[in-house]
């Protein structure tokens, strides 16, 4: 069972790798703007997560993402739907 903190850990690692920032600077409240995450970056982050958890994030959900927490919540919901 994947927990919320697992998702947070995976995502932070991905962002840290892609944007060359330290994981400690990333919190669920961090906005994607603050982290310098462009739309291409966010597509690539979501791709990593999709691959890891075998889910598919719909395009309309992708547009709504504003913070790191938004991504974590979205992935959690998709995983819950999958396990039902």
């Amino acid at each position, binding site marked *: 069972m994947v927990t919320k903190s697992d998702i947070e850990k995976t995502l932070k690692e991905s962002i840290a*790798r*892609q*944007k*060359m920032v330290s994981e400690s600077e990333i919190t669920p409240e961090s906005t994607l703007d603050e982290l310098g995450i462009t739309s*291409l970056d966010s*597509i*690539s982050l979501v*791709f990593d997560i*999709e*691959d890891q958890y075998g889910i598919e994030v719909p395009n309309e959900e992708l547009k709504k993402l504003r913070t790191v927490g938004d991504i974590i919540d979205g992935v959690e919901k998709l995983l819950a739907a999958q396990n039902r």
Partner: protein
Amino acid sequence: MKTVAITGLGCVSGLGLDADACWQALREGKSGIQPLKGFDESDLKVATAAQVPDYRPEKHFQPAQLGLLDRHSQFALLAAREAVANAGLNEAHRKTMAAVIGTGCGGKETDELTYQKLYKEEKRRVHPFTIPRGMPSAASSQVTMDLGIQGPAFTVASACASTNHAIAQAVLMIRAGLAETAIAGGTDAPFTYGLLKSWEALRILSPDTCRPFSRDRKGLVLGEGAGMVVLESLDHAERRGAAIHGLIRGIGMSADASHITDPSPEGAARAMQAALDDAGISADSIGYLNAHGTGTQLNDLSETRAIHAVFGDHAGRLAVSSTKSMHGHALGAAGALELIATVLALKEQMAPPTANFTEPGEGCDLDYVPNQARPLKNARFAMSNAFAFGGLNAVLVVERAA
């Protein structure tokens, strides 16, 4: 009309990671052709290649940047950084600079890895960077982003003549006053399983080495890399006190309009003559000719005939060499490596040799500077040929800097 000066050189090739390494090897007649590395597929017939030695991408690029850089873009960036640093151009110059980059293959490595995932590994999704990494114009975009180049920028594709057509475009823009400075050249990274199988199918790859113009030549050997030059109007170069490596005096282009792979001596001769006419010089002013010289049966004979047609009596006195015998056939980058060889040959008055030469092939009766570099006798002009599949020809005439 503005005169175009060459003020910066940079290259990555089977002979090393910079222009110095390349020129040193060429002078010494040392070939970069080695057993092919990186492929364990036992059905490959390709055995040799001129691959960039000891190349580790992570030494030159941040991991985040590498995700977006196909191998051909990586080579383009390294060569462009070297050329711009060599020219001593600052940030302000780069804001108005043009960039014209030739490529034969573009980002086929990226495309191929993607298709492998879809068709072979049966994955259902591919990486979102596939398009921006693999598009044919990727290298041009990456070079402008890396160096802050903000003038006209685009990619030119004409297979093995891509660099020479790109240089011609940049020269025309500087002559027309559209840009004061430009970076131009070519890049290619053809070592993928699919591309190697496709080249194999054409039956023109040599099983061992590349021996242009020799009787026992067996075909071409593929190479990889990139070469870039900084071009600028002579006025601009002199105003800022830049060191000048040479001048591009003439460009000549033609199409054979005959066959998709077989070359025509007439088409090649028309491009050479056009370059001489553009430079406003007679054929006997040329002191060194860097041949297209692929090492295939057809090219070397056809090119020799074309040289006779254009140069007449002077053909016999002309030093002609094919440096593909050392850096391999780097396709879209070939012209760039050869232009750098041509510029430095004039600058140092030393003709690089045709390496691996045994004895002249039938009908190959020119002075091919076999195996050993030779001092030039006060050569002022040189020519560099590029003849692509499909009969797209582009020839450059270079003048030694005063």
